[in-house]
């Protein structure tokens, strides 16, 4: 009870204006990738087709020394002939700021449906590889990776 001080009203108006101004300049932080985002990113590539487990071998170290550089090797069981080959392999992750890792495009000239690279993992998470076959089918494999952080981090 008691009357509001004039200063309080003015303060409220100022704070309201400040908040409005700030809202205009604050950028939304990019949403962290989540399992739903990974599923949505996969759907963008696969569409409505069903994804079968198998034929894809995803090799990632189960325990990673440093999330900045993780070895990744993907190979797909396929004869890689002119009529039966892997068109593309897409790799996704669960918890990085972005769900995509890499998409590679192959063909019968590849000989083997196999590639390797090094990628970044922000946290312990699931990595998924999807193979897009010439007959329109999709196959997948996933791996659960544990990521440790360097104990003595530089700077900042």
């Amino acid at each position, binding site marked *: 009870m008691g009357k509001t001080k004039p200063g309080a009203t003015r303060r409220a108006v100022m704070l309201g204006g400040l908040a409005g101004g700030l809202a205009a300049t604050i950028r939304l932080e990019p949403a962290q990738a989540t399992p739903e985002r990974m599923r949505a990113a996969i759907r963008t590539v696969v569409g409505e087709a069903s994804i079968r487990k198998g034929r894809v071998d995803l090799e990632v170290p189960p325990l990673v020394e440093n999330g900045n550089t993780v070895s990744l090797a993907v190979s797909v069981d396929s004869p890689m002939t002119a009529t039966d080959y892997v068109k593309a392999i897409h790799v996704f992750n669960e918890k990085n700021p972005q769900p995509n890792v890499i998409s590679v495009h192959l063909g019968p000239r590849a000989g083997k449906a196999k590639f390797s690279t090094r990628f970044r993992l922000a946290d312990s998470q699931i990595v998924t590889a999807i193979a897009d076959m010439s007959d329109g089918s999709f196959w997948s494999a996933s791996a659960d990776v544990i990521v440790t952080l360097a*104990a003595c981090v*530089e*700077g900042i």
Partner: protein
Amino acid sequence: MSRRAPRLGPIIGRVTAVAFVLVAIASAANCADIPLDQRRSGYLDLGRDSKAMQDDDTINPATLWVQDGEALWNQKAGAANRACADCHQDATVSMKGVAARYPAFSVARNGPINLEQRINLCRSEHQQAQPFAYENRELLALTAYVGRQSRGVAIAPPDDDRLAPFVEAGRKLFNRRIGQIDMSCAQCHDDNWGKKLAGSLIPQAQPTGYPIYRLEWQSLGSLQRRLRNCMTGLRAEAYEYGAPENVNLELFLMWRARGLLLETPAVRP
């Protein structure tokens, strides 16, 4: 109304336990050096893929710097318009074993200098060129190229009496507690190597592969950069690049690693 006094028993128990651990660590400090036959390179603790990255020059990212270093070795520079090759000819011959015996005593500086400083001295004195800034890409490339020529050579600090007081200064720094964390290098790397710190394995800190491609940096870097990282990690103010304290520490660390084989350029997490 009075509140119930907190039960002191568990608190005393916890404080005693922490104090006991701290005392245990403190009393373990200044323990003996690692026995010579128990010393090991951090390479042995690498995961399979990191080992493969180091072992194969065709997939080791450090090779990108070594290649650049070779180009710089042959490139004329400075007012004297001289290349390293003009004096030192074929680095695979003239530089073999050099990185294994640095830091070395410099009469000009009246103290030890590391390989980076030696390269910069050559640049300013013999090429009449501007010395490179520390951690500059060209300096790293040249250090990696020169260091690469000593791969497989045993670390052999020079048997030079003039270096003795500086090795001792380095040893004191290694055993000195620093920073908010108030710990010394020795407490982790002499007394607790092989154990885990926040999920990462504590290495012995033998500088067997510098400059290294550190996965944390995603880049090549020098031993001084790594030392400064550690100091920052202990919440201490790191010595500047080229500071005598850093060079003395490097000198001591190489003395401590004497006999271990050089792996330059190595891969480390």
